């Protein structure tokens, strides 16, 4: 089966500084891919590259980026706009921030729909209300007549998800969609995203630094560090048998109620644009060898079942 989204050896830079290095990922219809990593690992840049919103200073230097066979790098601006919202949706971190604060939510739904063609007035109304009720927002009429600031954070984020999903895009990109929410609301939103996936077969690419969210909802995990994917695989393979020391350290840093102590990762990730020799994680890695800091070649090491890592030594 061909993936709905295929990223191959993607290099992206901002103002000449390399942010993403050799990123290779694939996402299939109906699957959820979790992209984890610390702040500044290039996760958000990756999403922006996919949806074509890198801005004036961002540039794709090299690689392939394909959505359902469409080359997203060479696509015309006009055609990219038509894809956004219709076939590619995006949800942002801050609830409500993606909506204009001084326009009613209903108007913003209409605006999003009318950007992609003319719809029958009645049909539009039902469509919006249906999507809101998919997210358990039952008093849709009241919500459509409200302004974003009148709703709670959790409700706003669900409205934002409905807004991104109203045209049933095949791929939903989510940039830390739960990080700004209360823990109880987080669980709700995560559950509803999974329901949407089950209902519409939407593929989702979910950027987060919350390992709890990852272990609960995703199918595949990509661990990012310093602009590279350092480990990729099915959720269980990566969570149970992490092969990269960074992944291992991330999992050890998950707070737990019982059992082992939570362990932080000392040090800072390398600064973008500053050159390093060998493995970018070597400076913080507890099992780094001399070779790691010199001419280590960063090539995927296969562990079977699609599970690979950039670390040649493994952890088992």
């Amino acid at each position, binding site marked *: 089966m061909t993936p709905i989204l295929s990223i191959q050896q993607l290099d992206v830079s901002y103002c000449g500084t390399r942010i993403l290095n050799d990123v290779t990922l694939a996402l299939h219809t109906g699957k959820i891919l979790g992209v984890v990593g610390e702040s500044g690992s290039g996760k958000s840049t990756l999403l922006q590259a996919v949806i074509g919103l890198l801005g004036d200073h961002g540039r794709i230097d090299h690689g392939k980026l394909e959505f359902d066979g469409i080359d997203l790098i060479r696509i015309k601006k006009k055609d990219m706009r038509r894809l956004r919202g219709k076939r590619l949706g995006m949800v942002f971190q801050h609830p409500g*921030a*993606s909506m*204009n604060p*001084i*326009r009613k939510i209903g108007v913003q739904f209409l*605006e999003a729909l009318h950007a992609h063609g003319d719809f029958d007035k009645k049909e539009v109304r039902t469509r919006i209300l249906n999507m809101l009720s998919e997210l358990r927002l039952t008093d849709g009429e009241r919500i459509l007549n409200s302004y974003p*600031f009148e709703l709670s954070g959790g409700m706003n984020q669900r409205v934002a998800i409905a807004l*991104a999903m109203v045209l049933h895009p095949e791929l939903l990109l989510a940039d830390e969609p739960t990080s700004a929410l209360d823990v109880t609301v987080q669980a709700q939103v995560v559950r509803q995203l999974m329901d949407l996936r089950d209902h519409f077969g939407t593929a989702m690419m979910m950027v987060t630094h919350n390992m709890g969210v990852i272990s609960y909802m995703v199918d595949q995990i990509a661990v990012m560090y310093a602009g590279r994917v350092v480990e990729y695989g099915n959720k269980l393979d990566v969570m149970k048998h992490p092969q990269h020391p960074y992944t291992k350290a991330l999992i050890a840093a998950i707070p737990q109620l019982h059992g082992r102590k939570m362990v932080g990762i000392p040090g800072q990730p390398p600064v973008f644009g500053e050159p390093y020799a060998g493995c970018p994680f070597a400076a913080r890695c507890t099992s780094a060898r001399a070779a790691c800091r010199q001419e280590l070649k960063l090539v995927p090491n296969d562990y079977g079942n699609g599970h690979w890592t950039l670390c040649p030594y493994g952890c088992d």
Partner: protein
Amino acid sequence: MIWRYAVKRVLQLIPILFGITLLSYALMQSASADTVDMMMQKRGMLITPENQAVMRHEMGLDQPFILQYFQWLGKIFTGDMGYSYLKNMDVFPLFMKALPSTLLLTLSSMVVTVCISVPLGILSAVRQNKITDYVIRFFSFIGNALPGFFVALLLLLVFALWLGWLPVTGNHGFVSILLPTFTLAIAMSAKYTRQVRATVLEELNKDYVMGCLARGVKGRTILLANVLKNSMLTIVTLLALSIGSLLGGTAIVESIFMWPGVGSLAVDAIGNRDYAIIQVYVIWMAVIYVGINLITDLIYHFLDPRIRMQGEG
């Protein structure tokens, strides 16, 4: 709702206006020369101290300050705003004759300013750091740097003297308003183009713009229905302040073009210490500013639901 808010605001204005009139009246009183002195000076003759005392008594100038103030205030409400010894007529009709000219000039220069600065400001912001932006910024910089009287003289020189298209001064119908209008509009447009640019740039960087882009909303819709609407909140405030100062009469421009507005009236009155006119002018300015402030707040209520809801809650 909005009407209750409006009424509340209007009621709040009463003590403010009261305070302003009291203060301005007190300041006039503290001036060294009074009306009798000024009349004497103007007519160029000496009046015996006895006669001066009689005149002061007739005019009520020998009464305590606070009594004079309330008498004056009472008369204002009946439309009797005093007598201008300078023009030898009542102040109120004098003022009413000057007002339409000022209103007209305010309106025309505001319209021209908005028509120039809003499109240029948006264009400059959208084409940030491109050649269009640089050209617009260059001219707005020049417009900002040129003083109004210089622009006025420049325009007079080119359009009235060299080209002979427009009259030099006075009010000869529509053509006469062009030069004072553009003199005012050039300086204001230069200022507002920069303001609009800065405001639009700030709005363009907000998250909702990214949200709209991610939903595939067209660039033009984002600009006109979202960014411009949000930018209006800031721009309206700035425009209101300018309208205020324009309605007060633009002394320099009105004087240069002999435009018969309240600005030149006030300048004449101040030069000759014609207290009656100055008093009315001060009241007029106060009324304009509090009035414009009120209107701005009400417009805000229409534009920004966040403020509207706060008021209700």
